[in-house]
């Protein structure tokens, strides 16, 4: 049985260690914040210039001057700190963020990541994604194992434009958890009652297990 979104988020949350500074991508990765284990305290970075990002605000806390990188209104915490975009990306590029959890369109067996552009569709831009994958110490991808049309997202080589080369350290899908290092991709955990064969069938990239 494939993992549910909640189970995937819990697996991602289990990667977080106490004291980590973490950047969560827009969409499913943002949900991971709701599953951080007890006793683990992490500080969320928002690349538009904030450490210690709080949850969505109550109605009367809404402030046009307080948004996250997805342009959503958020709230302040006692530990919040603000800074400008140059400082924010100095922090990211300089390797001071411990982990980033991001979505993906494709991940290759060597850790190449494509998550910013589908040729032929309107280009929106890479925002901070290329900086994050280049600079953050550990990059975790959280995504469905296959695209909506059933095609593999764990591929031999990305056909979509890259966000970064050999940047992904871990991939969590609804079928399994894959570690990527210089030797390649390795399945380290699989969803209950899912066989390695089934995963192989639905994966283009070679992997060990």
């Amino acid at each position, binding site marked *: 049985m494939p993992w549910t979104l909640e189970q995937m988020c819990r697996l991602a949350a289990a990667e977080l260690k106490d004291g980590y500074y973490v950047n969560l991508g827009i969409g499913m990765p943002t949900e991971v914040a709701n599953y951080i284990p007890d006793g683990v305290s992490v500080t969320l970075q*928002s*690349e*538009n*210039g*904030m450490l210690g990002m709080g*949850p*969505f*605000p*109550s*109605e009367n806390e*809404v*402030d*046009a*001057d*307080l*948004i*996250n990188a*997805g*342009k*959503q*209104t*958020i*709230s*302040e915490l006692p530990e919040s700190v*603000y*800074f*400008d*975009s*140059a400082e*924010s*990306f*100095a922090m*990211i*590029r300089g390797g001071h963020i411990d982990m980033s959890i991001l979505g993906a369109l494709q991940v290759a067996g060597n850790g*190449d990541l494509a998550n910013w552009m589908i040729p032929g569709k*309107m*280009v*929106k*831009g*890479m*925002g*901070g*994604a*290329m*900086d994050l994958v*280049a*600079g953050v110490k550990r990059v975790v991808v959280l995504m469905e194992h296959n695209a909506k049309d059933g095609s593999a997202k764990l591929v031999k080589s990305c056909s979509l*434009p*890259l*966000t*970064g*080369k*050999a940047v992904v350290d871990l991939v969590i899908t609804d079928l399994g958890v894959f570690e990527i290092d210089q030797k390649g991709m390795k399945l380290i955990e699989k969803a209950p009652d899912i066989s390695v064969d089934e995963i192989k069938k639905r994966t283009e990239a070679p992997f060990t297990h």
Partner: protein
Amino acid sequence: MSKKVYPNAKAALDGLLSDGMMIMAGGFGLCAIPENLILALRDSGVKNLTVVSNNCGVDDFGLGILLQTRQIKKMISSYVGENATFAKQFLDGELELEFNPQGTLAERCRAGGAGIPAFFTKTGVGTVVAEGKETREFNGEAYIMETALVAELSIVKAWKGDKNGNLVYRRTARNFNPPMATAGRVTIAEVEELVEVGQLDPNHIHTPGIYVNRIIQGARYEKRIERRTVRK
């Protein structure tokens, strides 16, 4: 020194505009954009602008206003996904576009203000961003060379400012404003509250007035929220 204070956005732009010029505009999404100066740019009729800004507003607010009037020829941005006018003009070939990774864009502005013509970064190595750029190894890792951005005019928005041009920002409304304030040959700041010199804490000025040539108190701030999300 209070010669930096101008009565309004139109006056502050006086003598600085020419068709085809490059302008940097602070803000992230619709947060802390120089609303009043953008409206005055529209009214000025200046054309064929190259605009450096992380985003391009929405259809009817922020820099989107200058798209509607077709005053922008080229954008240098990191993300423009919120704007249908943008998509249309780009697909019609009316608009040029240069995407920069967000951190590279911020650093190019910072470098422009800091007298650093070029720097190396890991961001974008092996991607389309690296095309045509020098790649070099340092300590066994590949980096690409990015160059500085200097604009003929920078327009920024702060929370408070004093008559010497010293600026203070509030919460995440700081974003691109400080690095862009340093990178304009001329920089105009608009603020919600203009105060006397000495009223801001000298230990806590975000943008020293040396970077700001002209300053106005904005006539009116809509401070539109792009994605209002609240806790249930």
